[in-house]
């Protein structure tokens, strides 16, 4: 399923010709590993999307037989084509897990980070190539364990991607597979983050000091620290939950649990809030891991296509670092309703308000970068420009959720689902598309077809809003999240037409990905051949041939100026690459 499909890039003779296995599957070249990560992540993103499209059927037409594919999932999950609540919850939990841990993070950090970052700092490869390979294969095994959990008796994990105890401790066997899969994914991210930080610190080209680094590299640097320090607590929590499930300990199980009349044999004394604290200690930095590299990609694409340096590069970098730091101390705004007192909730409400400031600074700096630019509306730029207002909506709708008082009504409703999907779907996924369209020529030497790209953009942009905008109104109406059938409640039934609208938007969004998939595979062979710098960009990755050979640069690059020297007065061309001493 993954890694099988590869474009054929030919190594230079001075390396001993590696066997197929060493060159494609167990390769230590950061570019091959980057492609492996990217392809596996794209497959998982598509799989997660399909799970969601099935859920949308049950939400829009509760209890109705799913047409066409209804009876493919066996009587245990969908008897007679009608989805059971257990299967709906399993789809929901796995949709969240697959999209976050198996789709977006490996795509942003594993795919883009591994491929583009060493090129952008002028390094021949990552500092620890073998650890880089190990991190991919740990991720791959984690992915396989997650997929196996679908076929385990009792189905996949069905207590949400947050798997709150005690529901997750009492859950079926799929939850144990979920925990084991998570341990592999966390190991993969830890190995990756150590590799990233050391590479960025140690292997920068000569003359490339920290404030000449492209913003994308800064984003990967801060993201790597978030992964390094935030993931281990979830690994500890996963160990505790595995002990609860398998060894009968009661870390998360209080005294006197009675499940449908049967007293449970736990010694008690545990606290369900312990799991929530340890989980959200990871999960909030995790959501910043999802958005920071996306901001990096968008900054690269905007700087390149406005033919103008980014406005306020230093304020953006300082905000990025401040954002990374603050993301560790806001986690309990997910837990306002767990009986928190005034002092702790005031602390976390304050840190949540403070953390909104750096995001506003970065977003405003990106918009002001458009001022007095010369904006080229090619496909990566369209996606990057769409990212800005969409991320603004996502960010702003975080405000009422960040304050405990307004969170009373909006907590765990569809308002929350609208909020984080606006940040992740039109935000991070659009940035991923921008990155793919932007760096595809560097990876394959051919460019994606821009007409198909524009079709893909406009359809996706329209339908993504059709899916997520109604969710804010459903959330205000009080429709709770993770409901198998919203029409049970009067306030849910009243907005059922909005649910149907979202569902149709989701299916049409699925359809509008066809041009992209078509374009992605056809351009491998039929795409227009381009030189090594088709976008006339200034950063170092465009100084290497595309696709770059093993060891990346023929001559070790030296850097003379900042990352975005566009339209410098007194130069013929409107871009001045970092590695050129004087204009060629």
């Amino acid at each position: 399923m993954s890694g099988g499909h590869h474009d054929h890039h030919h190594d230079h003779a001075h390396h001993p010709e590696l066997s197929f296995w060493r060159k494609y599957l167990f390769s230590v070249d950061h570019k091959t590993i980057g492609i492996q990560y990217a392809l596996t992540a794209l497959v998982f993103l598509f799989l997660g999307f399909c799970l969601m499209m099935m859920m949308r059927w049950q939400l829009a037409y509760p209890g109705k037989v799913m047409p066409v594919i209804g009876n493919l999932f066996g009587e245990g999950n969908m008897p007679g084509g009608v989805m059971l609540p257990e299967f709906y919850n399993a789809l929901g939990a796995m949709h969240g897990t697959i999209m976050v841990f198996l789709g977006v993070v490996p795509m942003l950090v594993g795919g883009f980070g591994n491929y583009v970052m060493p090129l952008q700092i002028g390094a021949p490869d990552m500092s620890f190539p073998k650890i880089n390979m190990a991190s991919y294969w740990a991720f791959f095994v984690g992915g396989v364990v997650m997929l196996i959990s679908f076929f385990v008796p009792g189905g996949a994990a069905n207590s949400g991607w947050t798997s709150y105890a005690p529901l997750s401790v009492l859950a079926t066997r799929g939850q144990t597979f979920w925990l084991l899969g998570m341990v592999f994914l966390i190991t993969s991210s830890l190995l990756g983050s150590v590799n990233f930080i050391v590479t960025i610190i140690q292997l920068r080209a000569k003359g490339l000091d920290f404030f000449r680094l492209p913003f994308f590299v800064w984003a990967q640097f801060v993201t790597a620290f978030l992964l390094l320090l935030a993931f281990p607590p979830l690994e500890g929590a996963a160990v505790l939950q595995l002990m609860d499930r398998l060894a009968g300990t009661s870390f998360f199980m209080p005294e006197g649990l009675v499940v449908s009349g049967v007293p449970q044999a736990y010694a008690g004394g545990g606290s369900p809030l312990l799991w929530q604290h340890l989980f959200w200690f990871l999960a909030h930095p995790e959501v910043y891991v999802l958005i920071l590299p996306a901001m990096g990609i968008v900054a690269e694409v905007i700087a390149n296509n406005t033919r103008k340096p980014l406005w306020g590069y230093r304020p953006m970098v300082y905000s990025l670092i401040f954002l990374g730091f603050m993301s560790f101390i806001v986690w309990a705004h997910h837990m306002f309703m767990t009986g928190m007192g005034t002092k702790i909730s005031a602390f976390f409400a304050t840190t949540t308000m403070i953390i909104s400031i750096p995001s506003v600074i970065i977003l405003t700096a990106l918009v002001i970068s458009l001022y007095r630019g010369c904006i080229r509306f090619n496909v990566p730029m369209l996606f990057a420009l769409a990212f800005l207002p969409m991320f603004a909506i996502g960010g702003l709708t975080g405000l009422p959720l960040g304050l405990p008082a307004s969170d009373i009504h909006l907590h765990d409703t569809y308002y929350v689902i609208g909020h984080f999907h606006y940040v992740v779907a039109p935000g991070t996924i659009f940035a991923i598309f921008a990155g793919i369209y932007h760096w595809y020529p560097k990876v394959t030497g051919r460019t994606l077809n821009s007409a198909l790209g524009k079709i893909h953009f406009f359809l996706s942009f329209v339908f993504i809003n059709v899916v997520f905008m109604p969710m804010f109104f459903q959330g205000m109406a009080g429709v709770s999240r993770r409901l198998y059938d919203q029409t049970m409640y009067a306030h849910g039934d009243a907005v059922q037409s909005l649910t149907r609208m979202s569902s149709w938007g989701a299916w049409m969004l699925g359809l509008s990905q066809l041009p992209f998939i078509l374009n992605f595979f056809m351009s491998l062979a039929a795409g227009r051949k381009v030189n090594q710098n088709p976008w006339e960009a200034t950063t170092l990755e465009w100084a290497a041939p595309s696709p770059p050979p093993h060891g990346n640069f023929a001559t070790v690059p030296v850097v003379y100026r900042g990352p975005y020297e566009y339209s410098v007065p007194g130069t013929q061309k409107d871009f001045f690459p970092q590695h050129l001493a004087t204009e060629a």
Partner: protein
Amino acid sequence: MTRKFLLGTTVAIVVLGVLFVEAAPAWAQAVAPKTSVKVDGEYGPFMPPDVSVHGHKVDQLINLLHWFMGILFVGWGIFFVYCLIRFRQRPGHKASCELIKAKPSKYAEICVAIFEAVILLGFSIPIWASVKNDIPPPTDNPVRIRVVAEQFAWNFHYPGADGKFGRVDPKLIDTATNPLGLDRTKDGADDIFSLEMHIPVGRPVICEISSKDVIHSFFLPVMRVKQDAIPGMRIPVWFQAAKTGTYEVACAQLCGNNHYSMRALMYIQEPAAFEKWLAEKSKPAEEFQD
């Protein structure tokens, strides 16, 4: 790639889309609402009706925030669109990169920060403090209810005339008649157990929320009340009804397979009707045993 091919793919997608939209209603008729019991208040895409005495504070904060978000987004969007049009690539137009001071954006950000501080200190913290700390004292004669969530039902336990809650014991649990394991001997003799919540209008209500098995969340949309029911903890929540009517109690936290069907009804009655219901429910205590 030839133009014809591109045209072909676009037309194909549009046709497929239209086909989908047309054919769908044939597969699925509109679903008849399951809510058998008529629930008061009209519901729509915006905030549900507010029958609580203190609910307006939460609504006011949410409206204020959304006005703030609207103004920010529109103002910011206008500048965004202006930049896209004014500085688009066209012959003769060059990008210029001399420094822009962008004073207004710095002031805008400072105003945003100040506004957030005002919202936080002026509105959110006081409202939250009143929700958490101003639990009505015994002198206000509050109605006290123990709300116990369990997998897929809400149990309501009233102290009865003697004002004292009876003992509950896991060994006495009988899933059909006595899910709470209520000991009917001493204080519990006059206790009332019900699957529906009855409260009087005009009197404060204190619900002590806990759970028997997993985490649920006691959510009254019309009362602007939400409190996680966490096993091993009993968290007090208070509110006061301002209007009578029949409304819903929802579960807001995923609690298992039938999380969606964990709906209970809340009857807000006139004090007299409420007293009559209490008396009627506590009278046939003996036939409860058989």
